[in-house]
């Protein structure tokens, strides 16, 4: 019995027991449902063992949407708790857990996988490739992310959630102040999914550098591909820092080392530094692909080519470089001298310059364009002013001396939500809607999509703009309640109301998927948006082999060239296509990694050893395995192409 006591919830409440029951019931329902409809074979053969970048992309996006609702539930609970003064819906410990998991889930398990999912689906198509460079590794990346996320999510029913904030600062995150296993969960869930992300980074750099269609020079890549390339470079150089920081944290908590303690030579500020050396590039990992998505959408729906292609590329290169030089601005108030703060203040503010260039480029792309106000375009248009406000408040925060006033207030919370929601969330929703027909062969309903857009945008403004005011008035972030005398009450209530509108928007988006699945016409053709870049030159939905013939490209808008300038994209005969084999091993490795992480979290060493042996066994199996893939014959290609009605392609 003693053995099982460690799995008890650290700080239980009826709400957690209720969710425990709910998780149990939903899991049983899923298993029963799949068995009843006899879908286990389909699930295993078509999804769990796939190495197809398109299916992996879709799985990333589905997981990201699930995590969006998990993180969203956390958000609603926080807004509900602070809606009125002296509220007792959550106590301090629960509030700590909720804001921690909200942050981690939204950044690591919602925004990043959503971005990586779109990248997986779109980048190989945009460069005219058959798959990524290492399809099998891609599957491993996905399953490591997925099981990392699952590991993180079981924390609140087994052993207790992390409660030291998503930034997990020491000494707060040490055993002394966070005695539950929560922070161990944080360490291992991030470690496992981080390894997956690192492998994605390597995979996509190799893919983009080596597998572009003939004629597609670097400066002729579509902007989303450029953004993805730079993002993956940042991933490869930032994630190892997190790996080491988490390792040191794990050692401190589980092996009693003195890295982040305040005795025996330990230094707690070291964590803050390492965390943000990874953490600041991390926010650019999120925003650069978003910039890429907006570039594609704004150009398509303005019916103009992207203004200032070269300056767009160079500004992203600059942002990527700067992203590694600003980490200290997250803790101006923590005791550096004025000279150090000034340097980081300047580098921080300098990022506004390349970002500003991009804003003007988008505006000039729209200038004199024939703008079509579709759902993706609405998100992109709303992004520009809202993101600019977020950027301007970022510059305010970047002024070190003034930061002493804003630091750790709701002003900061308002700022980063103001860049992340209109920046990243709007972008992935816009990209999701824009590329939906590419993935599934039908459109999402525009009317419901527009309702969702307006709910989301208005809800966003109501939820976060009041925080600027309360923050300047001195409301600290991460405080679970406040007294009535502070006067923060009405504005917090307004925030709660805004959060409610946003929840309605996300419900509408889900409803839209359901509604469109049922009612949307299936014959949308291959070019429903009158688009410009190469991914639209193949069919909707995309055949397994992407392109029947490798395209030849002469600009960043290859498809537009074909439509308007008579460029011949596919001027070759069909040839046999070589495809990689599917494999169940990546999934099994994901399971083993989650067992490894789980056992390590609870210091069950036998589980750690056995799962580690299992992981190495998978790797040994891989190195001895002889797989040569399979071939799709010319006859099969012809049949598929005729079925899609595009024999000429």
């Amino acid at each position, binding site marked *: 019995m003693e053995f099982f006591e460690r799995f008890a919830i650290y700080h239980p409440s009826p709400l957690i027991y209720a969710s425990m029951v709910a998780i149990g019931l939903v899991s049983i329902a899923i298993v029963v449902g799949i068995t009843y409809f006899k879908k286990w074979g389909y699930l295993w053969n078509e999804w769990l063992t796939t190495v197809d970048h398109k299916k992996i992309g879709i799985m990333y996006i589905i997981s990201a949407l699930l995590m969006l609702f998990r993180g969203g539930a956390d958000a609603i609970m926080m807004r509900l708790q602070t809606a009125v003064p002296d509220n007792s819906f959550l106590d301090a410990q629960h509030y700590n857990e909720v804001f921690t998991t909200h942050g981690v889930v939204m950044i690591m398990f919602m925004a990043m996988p959503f971005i990586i999912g779109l990248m997986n689906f779109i980048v190989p198509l945009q460069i005219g490739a058959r798959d990524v460079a290492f399809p099998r590794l891609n599957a491993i990346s996905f399953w490591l992310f997925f099981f990392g996320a699952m590991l993180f999510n079981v924390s609140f029913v087994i052993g207790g959630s992390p409660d030291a904030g998503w930034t997990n600062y020491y000494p707060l995150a040490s055993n002394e102040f966070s005695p539950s296993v929560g922070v161990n969960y944080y360490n291992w869930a991030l470690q496992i999914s981080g390894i997956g992300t690192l492998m994605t980074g390597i995979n996509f750099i190799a893919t983009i550098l080596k597998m572009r269609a003939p004629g597609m020079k670097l400066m002729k890549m579509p902007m989303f591909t450029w953004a993805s390339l730079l993002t993956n470079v940042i991933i490869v150089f930032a994630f190892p820092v997190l790996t080491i*920081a988490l390792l040191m944290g794990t050692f401190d908590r589980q092996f009693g080392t*003195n890295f982040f303690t305040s005795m025996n030579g330990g230094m707690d500020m070291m964590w803050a530094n390492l965390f943000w050396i990874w953490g600041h590039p991390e926010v650019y990992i999120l925003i650069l692909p978003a910039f890429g998505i907006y570039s594609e959408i704004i150009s398509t729906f303005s019916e103009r080519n992207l203004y200032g292609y070269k300056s767009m590329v160079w500004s992203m290169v600059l942002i990527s470089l700067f992203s590694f030089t600003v980490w200290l601005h997250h803790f101006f108030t923590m005791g550096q001298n004025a000279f150090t703060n000034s340097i980081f203040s300047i580098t921080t503010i300098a990022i506004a310059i390349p970002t500003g260039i991009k804003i003007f480029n988008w505006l000039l792309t729209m200038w004199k364009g024939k703008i079509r106000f579709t759902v993706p375009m609405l998100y992109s248009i709303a992004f520009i002013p809202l993101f600019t406000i977020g950027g301007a408040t970022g510059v305010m925060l970047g002024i070190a001396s003034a930061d002493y006033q804003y630091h750790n207030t709701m002003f900061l919370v308002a700022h980063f939500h103001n860049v992340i929601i209109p920046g990243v969330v709007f972008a992935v929703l816009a990209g999701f809607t824009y590329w939906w027909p590419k993935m599934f062969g039908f459109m999402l309903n525009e009317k419901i999509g527009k309702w969702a857009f307006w709910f989301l945008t208005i809800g966003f403004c109501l939820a976060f703009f009041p925080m600027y005011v309360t923050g300047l008035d001195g409301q600290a972030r991460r405080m679970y309640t406040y007294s009535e005398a502070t006067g923060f009450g009405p504005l917090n209530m307004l925030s709660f109301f805004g959060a409610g509108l946003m929840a309605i928007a996300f419900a509408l988006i889900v409803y839209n998927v359901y509604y469109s699945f049922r009612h949307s016409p299936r014959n949308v053709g291959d070019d429903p948006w009158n688009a410009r870049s190469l991914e639209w030159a193949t069919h909707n939905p995309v055949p397994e082999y992407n392109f029947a013939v490798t395209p030849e490209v002469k600009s960043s808008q290859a498809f537009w060239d074909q439509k308007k300038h008579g460029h011949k994209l596919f001027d070759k005969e069909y040839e046999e296509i070589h495809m990689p084999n599917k494999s169940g091993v990546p999934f099994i490795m994901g399971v083993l990694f989650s067992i490894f992480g789980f056992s390590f979290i609870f210091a069950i060493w036998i589980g750690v050893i056995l799962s580690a042996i299992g992981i190495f066994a998978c790797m040994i199996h891989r190195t001895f395995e002889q797989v040569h893939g399979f071939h799709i014959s010319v006859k099969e290609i012809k049949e598929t192409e005729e079925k899609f009605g595009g024999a000429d392609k």
Partner: protein
Amino acid sequence: MKIDHSQPLEYSTEQNRLNILGFWIFLGAEIMLFATLFTSYFVYEDRIGSGPSGADIFEITPVLIETIILLTSSFTIGLAVHAMRINRTKAMTVFLGITLLLGAAFLATEIYEFNHYYHVGATLQTSGFTGILLTTLGTHGAHVTLGLFWGTMILMQIKKRGLTPQIANKSFIFSLYWHFLDVVWIFIFSFIYLKGMM
């Protein structure tokens, strides 16, 4: 599978070329990993609390042995790749085997060294300095250990299947990895041991 005979065996297919590029990118990530460790080492170097300092515990003999062994193994893996390129399978397996033996000898010396640290009271828990010292050395040592298993697998495959383009590719990538560990060791030797002893 298209094999381009104008290229060395390890570069002869499209997937082989992708694998080598991919591994170089991975080494980029590894550089960041060790750079983080070295940076942390420099931060903690003088934070010894009540524990020993580098000068108190470093011993030149095992460190010199480790250095010579590892540098030699870098040379022998180079010979192995050279033998592979002139298609001398036998010589290649011998040099690869010697490399792995040297790797094992390195590891044995390092275990001896760690044992010594333990006995003079420099454990993972003693201070910020000993923690980061053992973590940095341990991360390098873990890489060498992994390399030993990996190299053994490759050796078995050469015995079993001969030098196919795939196996040549794996061997070449392994040699990149091994050279990289050597480069890291040179930094460890210079910036941890020499700097600590001076």
